[in-house]
């Protein structure tokens, strides 16, 4: 990066981190890997010594014409996005920035994606490469800075969403995209059932939808693309103009809906799933594929209902659920344990953050 602010914010602490990991390995001391600590509410408590990633910061390389950016794990999303903004580019998966403290490493490790996810792809989809400190105390590189790369197993995408349980992400290369030329948001008053039907119908057509949520009374759509397609879609779909800040507030969980004191659940369900009859308040996102739920209902009942429709549930309220992540079938858990043992044989990386067994 050429801008002064980026140079000021760059610091390569990899050597120190590797030393800390080797130290922990020699004493079999578990580590609780931490970036901005903005997602502590997600997952189980880790009993380990905090390993702070925030000193390992900076953009390592960014060439807008390659559509690739590489940055160190402690870099905040705010800094990363600012660098992309300067070239009219973006992280298409819209990870939440959580009061500006969320880091790149934490975002990829937790695999969180925002409203554009069903159309653009997930955090993992944009990962091209990672550098990782392994359970043998080595600093290794997987994947790379090119769009297509099928050499070896895809460990860099495996790291996405693994909550630090398989290794410490120190650097990430991501595919980025140009920002759309035009963005318009619409609000169409209709009940949730009808909204889900319309979304299913429109989803089969080449409409430039890049966000679709239902707040209980209206369907809100975001349209992005060239002037021609966006304006034509606005004309065709009708409705009232909607403030674009809705999508930021939804991504950051700042909407009134999220203030409800009841526990928050995230339900991930197949695209065309009809309304789910569960007690509590629901907020539909991802064109129907993600349902936010504020409810006191029992974990077991909720998991049963979501599993029946082919989905799964994650609890977003710390300390509420016995197992915040959806339990895995026995066979699959066996391979999770074996993979954990292969990559982190001493079990020092975020043990138990996702599941007690890994």
């Amino acid at each position: 990066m050429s801008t002064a602010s980026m140079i000021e914010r760059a610091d390569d602490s990899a050597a120190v981190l590797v030393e800390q990991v080797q130290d922990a390995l020699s004493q079999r001391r578990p580590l609780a890997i931490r970036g901005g600590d903005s997602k502590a509410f997600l997952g189980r408590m880790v009993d380990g010594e905090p390993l702070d990633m925030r000193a390992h910061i900076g953009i390592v390389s960014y060439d807008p014409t390659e559509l690739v950016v590489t940055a160190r794990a402690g870099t905040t999303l705010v800094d990363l996005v600012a660098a992309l903004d300067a070239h009219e580019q973006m992280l298409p998966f819209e990870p939440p920035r959580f009061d500006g403290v969320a880091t790149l490493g934490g975002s990829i490790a937790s695999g969180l994606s925002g409203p554009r996810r069903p159309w653009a792809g997930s955090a993992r989809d944009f990962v091209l490469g990672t550098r990782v400190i392994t359970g043998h105390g080595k600093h290794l590189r997987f994947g790379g800075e090119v769009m297509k790369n099928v050499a070896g197993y895809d460990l860099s995408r495996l790291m996405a969403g693994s909550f630090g349980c398989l290794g410490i992400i120190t650097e990430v290369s991501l595919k980025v995209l140009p920002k759309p030329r035009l963005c318009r948001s619409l609000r169409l008053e209709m009940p949730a059932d009808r909204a889900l039907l319309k979304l299913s119908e429109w989803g089969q057509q080449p409409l430039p939808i890049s966000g679709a949520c239902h707040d209980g009374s209206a369907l809100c759509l975001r349209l992005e693309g060239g002037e021609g397609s966006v304006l034509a879609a606005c004309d065709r779909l009708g409705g009232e103009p909607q403030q674009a800040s809705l999508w930021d507030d939804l991504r950051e969980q700042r909407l009134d809906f999220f203030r409800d004191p009841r526990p928050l659940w995230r339900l991930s369900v197949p695209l065309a799933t009809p309304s789910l009859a569960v007690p509590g308040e629901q907020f539909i996102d991802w064109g129907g594929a993600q349902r936010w739920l504020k409810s006191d209902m029992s974990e077991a009942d909720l998991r049963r209902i979501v599993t029946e429709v082919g989905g799964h549930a994650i609890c977003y309220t710390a300390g509420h659920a016995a197992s915040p992540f959806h339990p895995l079938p026995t066979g699959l858990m066996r391979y999770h344990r074996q993979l954990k043992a292969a990559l982190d044989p001493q079990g020092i990386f975020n043990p138990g953050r996702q599941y007690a067994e890994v």
Partner: protein
Amino acid sequence: MNILYDERVDGELPRADKAILLAELRQRIPDLKLLHSAEDLRPYECDGLSAYRTTPMLVALPERLEQVATLLKVCHAQKIPVVPRGAGTGLSGGALPLEQGVLLVMAKFNRILEINPQGRFARVQPGVRNLAISQAAAPHELYYAPDPSSQIACSIGGNVAENAGGVHCLKYGLTVHNLLKVEILTVEGERLTLGSDALDSPGFDLLALFTGSEGMLGVVTEVTVKLLPKPQVAKVLLAAFDSVEKAGAAVADIIAAGIVPGGLEMMDNLSIRAAEDFIHAGYPVDAEAILLCELDGVEADVHDDCERVRHVLEKAGATEVRLARDEVERAKFWAGRKNAFPAVGRISPDYYCMDGTIPKRQLPAVLRGIKDFSDEYGLRVANVFHAGDGNMHPLILFDANAPGELERAEELGAKILELCVAVGGSITGEHGVGREKINSMCVQFNADELTVFHAVKAAFDPSGLLNPGKNIPTLHRCAEFGGMHVHAGKLPFPELERF
């Protein structure tokens, strides 16, 4: 260095007793079709990498899931290696058989189980051909995006195993980006579901890990793919340049203008001439390079983007820019590119297709490097290039009947891949490692990284019976290979004994 399985450096394989295995398989799975005579086995001795052949011990052609599960259990118990295979179109020898192994052919699993337009997915068996999915989805105006050039023949199970690409990857992604769920059988015949019908699933992303794992972690038995609405229109521009540097710069300029083309292809002069002679696509044969830029989407946007791209191309110094007037001309422009390989096949007895990827800005330097290698080895190289995503396909022209030419072509190819790695790229963008690039893996990854790969393999297949020898070289192979490629006076893998 020969790439056929070599127990000395690739690891000892268990000694199998064919008669005992055959007897048990016939008893446990009486209705399983098995091939075991020399003449029946011959058609299966290679995949798309036909320069290398090994006759398998047995070929199994199951039709039901239980047959596959039982076969895997029997082989696991008897310690027999199993090599899974789809349609056998792979170019890297990922389905190259083993003399002591069973070739498990999944081609008979060719049923489309469900096309769901509301949920925008298709659930299919692994032997279904890539193009057949889009054909089945066409009545709903939907399609499956990844389109490897072998799409009329290659199977979706093989696409998953190789993480297949195509010409539209920059905009629409690889196979891994277009999957929801796969069902697999482990080496022990245990059923696992990876991914889900929802957009994500709990736990580690094993779907991503298995995609591109070349049949070494499990056998794909069912695939659920995403379907997309068909773009309303697609238009293609052809631009000619008097230097590859200018063409390369034009690619960067298109991206810098905020445009993500559906396809963006480059051909050099040798490829242009070969294609024009064969297809008569109307290519300018005097151009040093041409770019084909396809824009797809909603009509109004495509129209605007075509104007923008035309402007960019002219500013970048194109000697000529043509917009295909209609579908016929668009198909003709593409036909030249899509037939570039067979076209090159007409001007040379044989050709060897490479698959390295590079950061796009390195293109002029890499093409110069390829030219130097070409002169050094006395073999012509034609270049076709997925310019949008940095995936090069240099075609090395040679004559297999001329003594030593195949070896020279392979050596030249390995040099090109080393160059790709040196400029920050990869030895394979979409064809996979298989056996073909097993030695080049030693250039891209160090011993510690390869050790991690082997640990991942062992987590799913501790006895190493699934497709042994593919994708990840042993450290011994790299030690021996590295011994021939000493860089800067330093031996790679100094900790290992040399043979």
